[in-house]
């Protein structure tokens, strides 16, 4: 009993102690090489303001980290700030009053004018108030190719998905895995997202995922997309890595021909000191369409009744959206800045392509922005099942997808 009391006392003292210092614990799931380097930029910029960034990295991608974050917030042990993908992941937390509004900071600094495209900030807005700081834009619509792998197979690096499919047999012959997809379910749904956006087209994409239009799923454009999905399953047969960065590593080492992955893969190439265009090739929209999606990461700030922490939170929010931190962070992360007015001279070819499309091309919403967490995960389960069962038909996917859309609307 006395031991318990002692424990409680030390915890209390410790909690009291941390509340005094202006330390802000920030939880996120950025643990791969490129991601960790990027988040260190935020930490550096925040520490420069005289506060202290306490890093609360949670390993194992968002699906492992989010439950931890949510249970800490709902369980009354909130951190100072936490990452979520903007969209609906934190919506209920906001509605329950567990997150603080950043409206005063946002309107004071004019976030609505500087954030581009505006849909990014709209995803942070609930009932007219802004609850999160968007920090980057990640397009999930990229195909990454290993130039090494194609050289080994003695063929040219394909310029689009169709050429890639044609090159696949040669890759197999050379003992190279044509397409690598990790076993995390969301990676499989990323492939669906890509084929819908690039092959069925952005209008169909918006109809299906934004408007939840079931009719569109049965349309002729989607037939082509589903056929491509089936092809992707054949190309991915035999890939048995788990994490997305292990898959990217295979592409970096030339053990795999290509990977469909968001532009965060860019960070891994950068850490491995690979050069875009020389060592690897990036194709937006599977090389078929100039298209990017606007999913991304945002930071939410749990409501804490301590004026010092509150002030530090506001400071952190300002740091994250400041032009300097945006440039430093996004260059390391391989993502695009959320403001159109910053200078990204140091951006490499791939990022430049993305920025150009963002400015002039087609932009679609990321799945996290338009689907509930429930629907998103059901979709991921459906897709990972499809990729692991060669006998599962496209019709089953169609039926499953319709069910999920109906459920979510």
């Amino acid at each position, binding site marked *: 009993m006395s031991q318990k009391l002692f424990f409680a006392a030390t915890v209390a003292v410790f909690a009291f102690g941390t509340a005094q210092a202006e330390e802000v614990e920030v939880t996120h799931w950025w643990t791969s090489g490129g991601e960790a380097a990027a988040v260190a930029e935020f930490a550096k910029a925040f520490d420069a303001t005289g506060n202290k960034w306490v890093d609360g990295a949670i390993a194992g991608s968002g699906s492992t980290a989010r439950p931890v974050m949510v249970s800490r917030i709902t369980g009354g042990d909130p951190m100072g700030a936490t990452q979520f993908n903007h969209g609906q992941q934190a919506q209920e937390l906001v509605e329950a009053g567990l997150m603080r509004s950043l409206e005063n900071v946002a309107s004071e600094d004019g976030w609505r004018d500087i954030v581009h495209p505006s849909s990014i900030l709209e995803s942070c807005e609930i009932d007219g108030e802004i609850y999160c700081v968007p920090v980057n834009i990640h397009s999930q619509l990229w195909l990454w190719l290993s130039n090494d792998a194609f050289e080994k197979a003695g063929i040219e690096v394909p310029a689009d998905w169709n050429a890639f499919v044609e090159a696949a047999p040669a890759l197999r012959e050379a003992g190279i895995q044509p397409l690598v997809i990790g076993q995390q379910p969301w990676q499989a749904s990323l492939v669906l997202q890509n084929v819908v956006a690039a092959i069925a087209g952005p209008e169909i994409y918006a109809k299906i995922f934004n408007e939840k239009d079931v009719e569109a799923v049965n349309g002729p454009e989607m037939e082509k997309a589903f056929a491509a999905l089936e092809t992707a399953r054949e190309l991915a047969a035999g890939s048995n890595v788990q994490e997305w960065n292990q898959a990217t590593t295979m592409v970096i080492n030339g053990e795999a021909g290509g990977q469909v992955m968001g532009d965060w893969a860019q960070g891994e190439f950068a850490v491995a000191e690979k050069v875009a265009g020389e060592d690897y090739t990036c194709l937006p929209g599977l090389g078929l369409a100039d298209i990017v999606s606007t999913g991304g990461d945002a930071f939410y700030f749990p409501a804490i009744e301590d004026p010092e922490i509150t002030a530090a939170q506001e400071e952190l929010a300002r740091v994250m959206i400041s032009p300097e931190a945006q440039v430093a962070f996004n260059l390391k992360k391989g993502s695009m800045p959320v403001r159109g007015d910053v200078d990204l001279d140091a951006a490499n070819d791939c990022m430049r392509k993305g920025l150009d499309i963002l400015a002039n091309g087609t932009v679609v919403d990321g799945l996290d922005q338009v689907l509930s967490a429930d629907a998103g995960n059901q979709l991921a389960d459906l897709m990972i099942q499809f990729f*692991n069962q060669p006998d599962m038909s496209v019709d089953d996917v169609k039926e499953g997808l319709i069910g999920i859309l109906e459920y979510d609307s």
Partner: protein
Amino acid sequence: MAKANGSGRPSRLFRNLNAKIAAIPMILTAMVVFVGFSLWTVVYSFTKSGLLPRLDFVGLIQYERLWSNTKWLISIQNLVVFGACMLIFSFVIGFVLACLLDQKIRFEGVFRTILLYPFALSFVVTGVVWQWILNPDFGFQSIVRAAGWESFTFDPLNNGKIVMFGVVIAALWQGTGFVMVLLLAGLRGIDEEIWKATRIDGVPAWKTYLFVIVPMLRPVFVTALVIVTAGIVKVYDLVVAQTNGGPGISSEVPAKYVYDQMFLNQNLGQGFAASTMMLVTVAIIIIPWAYLEFGGRKRG
């Protein structure tokens, strides 16, 4: 339990009053935690709770969705396969090992320690270790291939059809030693006179084990059965560490479904519905059995 059942006169209520008062905190805890929270879960399984619990009743919708969900159906199927294999093999192997150790062999303590040692490891460690051993690229398969048998294929964790057996292997490695030790303790409790009697009658040892000793060990078997079954129903960490439900969703289990629904999909209602179904299933098995097991005692 038995005492409470046997109470006839009201005065018995006040017997051992101190002990009963001392037990009140535990009784309260049990009532609130086990009964109260279970009821709470059942009630909320009829709601549309998302990330946070909300009393927004929607009838049986969560259950309809549950039973039309492939992932849940696969989970149930997997649990049946896993449970059947675990029960049969852990008891058969455990009993055989216990009998062998019971032969008064030398270094018994050493063997007992070796066989029980895996039980000291958590399921997470067990899962990771066996994930490595069963990895076709650098585990068991590659060793056999390197030894010369080129076409040898044993990759249960990458084959959805047999992945559950890969999980069973790891679970058996971890849990069989425990069954063995329980049964061994039971065997040590058998009166030496029984052995003498059967020897005089010329009954072979294996027959004695099967027809005399096993029935005598019934209480020990029941204890082991309850513990092993509880472990089967709640299996979660082993699967998460070893396969994370994969490949695809072919090694999902109900407890993982509950967790995924509650915390990944932010759909508490669905998670509660699934856990209520787990509770109902267990109750259907336990209640008739408990009735037969303890209800019959009244005459004694």
